[in-house]
């Protein structure tokens, strides 16, 4: 039992009260009412609305594209974190600062400029489209937008771990005769895996709900390039409230499940580190 220290600091009641009030008013009550509103929909209706062909295609695209984007982020994020921490090269500090750019740039602007880059006349599209790589208005476009949005997560979770990584371990491995590749695969990668997985899960969770950057580049064709959040928006535009709320609840439950998984991974990772 940890000893309870006497705390002379004032203001616990006031700040705790305000925190709980604001949290309830802005977050908990709106989420609660959304759930209550779904209770008004019968189970068979809920199931029917949640599993229409169009909805199933939208989930498939949302999860597929989010997964691929998160994998791309895990690979390139690891590479970027490694290069930023271990090597010295011109422009390193600038790139280090720019990694947070997708986090600061409004999603609508990201979508707008990415769509423009990959269209036939865009800076990248003029080379890629003749090669048969259609970045705009295709599922690939969704992956591109989600990769952009999720980029900072893996880099920023991995960077501090890599900075504090003990070089002695690598030296020991080298002294014992392991080549650099062997050291990397059997010594370095295992200890970097927990932060990479955490970053991957964060990028994946973010990608599932992402809206602004995707809707510009995907073209939002039903059954083809329509993501689940866009379908919710569409249902709302059609005044199909039950449809919108059903899909929203499905998305919300999946997001919360992911959040729980991220928490579990973090707990596992911190236990692993000890």
């Amino acid at each position: 039992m940890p000893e309870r220290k006497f705390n002379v600091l004032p203001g616990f009641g006031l700040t705790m009260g305000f925190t709980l009030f604001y949290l309830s008013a802005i977050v908990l009550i709106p989420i609660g009412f959304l759930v209550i509103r779904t209770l008004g929909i019968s189970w068979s209706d809920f199931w029917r609305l949640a599993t229409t062909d169009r909805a199933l295609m939208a989930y498939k695209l949302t999860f597929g594209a989010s997964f691929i984007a998160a994998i791309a982020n895990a690979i390139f994020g690891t590479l970027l974190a490694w290069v930023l921490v271990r090597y010295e090269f011109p422009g390193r500090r600038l790139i280090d600062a720019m990694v947070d750019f997708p986090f600061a740039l409004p999603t609508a602007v990201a979508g707008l400029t990415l769509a423009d880059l990959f269209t036939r006349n865009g800076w990248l599209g003029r080379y890629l489209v003749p090669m048969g790589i259609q970045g705009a208005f295709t599922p690939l476009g969704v992956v591109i937008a989600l990769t952009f949005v999720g980029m900072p997560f893996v880099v920023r979770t991995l960077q501090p771990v890599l900075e504090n990584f003990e070089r002695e371990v690598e030296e020991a491995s080298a002294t014992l005769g392991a080549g650099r590749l062997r050291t990397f695969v059997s010594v370095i990668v295992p200890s970097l895996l927990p932060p990479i997985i955490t970053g991957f899960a964060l990028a994946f969770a973010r990608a599932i709900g992402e809206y602004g950057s995707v809707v510009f580049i995907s073209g939002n064709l039903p059954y083809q390039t329509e993501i689940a959040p866009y379908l919710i928006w569409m249902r709302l535009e059609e005044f199909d409230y039950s449809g919108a709320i059903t899909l929203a609840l499905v998305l919300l439950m999946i997001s919360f499940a992911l959040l729980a998984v991220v928490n579990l991974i973090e707990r596992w990772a911190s236990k692993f580190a000890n």
Partner: protein
Amino acid sequence: MGAGHAKSQRGTEESLLVKWLLIGLALLFCLVFLLLPLLNVFAQAFSKGLGTYLDALKHPDSWAAIKLTLLVAVIAVPLNLLFGLAAAWCIAKFEFRGKALLITLIDLPFSVSPVVAGLMFVVLFGAQGFFGPWLNEHGVKIIFAVPGIVLATIFVTFPFVARELIPVMQAAGNDQEQAALTLGANGWQTFWHVTLPSVKWGLIYGVILCNARTMGEYGAVSVVSGHIIGRTNTMPLQVEQLYQNANTAGAFAVASLLALLALVTLAVKTFLEWKQHREFKLAQRATLAESAHAPPLMRPKSQ
């Protein structure tokens, strides 16, 4: 000796070829996913000349969108700042049951899709919502009006200030506040003169990040705004509207302001990190110098 040195280098470092290959790959990735999207915003915005650019920004609809975005930020950011301060104070300075749960709940808006966030407020205050009929009777408009936009934005940007402040305040500890209180300062004085200065960099970064996300919020606002041009269009919505109307240069002109805001946010962040790092170094040097000059009795005792 020389050969041994070369061998140990090979053991703990990659060969030059691998190193530059990795750097090259990383730079290529940054070029495609960071630099080109950024440069493209400004290149497209100025593609038809400075005159067209300024005209696009001076258009009454764009101007109305800019003013609305600023209004939303002026309301939403201070509220989230107040919340961030209160939440960080009780979480960082006190021990209580359910602290981990409270932190998880504060993070909740991060994992809610912006569209779902907007929908929640439609369910509450929309014409078919729980309080819709009552609001209609009393002539209060929330959805398709400014209050709805503010609420949805606050929801989405809710965790930012708290998230930045909690770790900084936790790291600062309670000792200084306790000393101030013992010396006779009251709670507010302690907060203003002791706590705030010790967390100011984290606080400033939390506020500017919250501000950038507030001004740039698109999904949630898109659901509750109703897209009334000149009245309920914020800047990101105006960007979309102009793009839909095939006015690409106009869309990029408004977008360039938001991209500039993102760049300023990053610049401030980098500056704050540099400043914090320097202060830390200075403080370290000062403690070392002090303990070296102090008479033996006053030297900090090691355990």
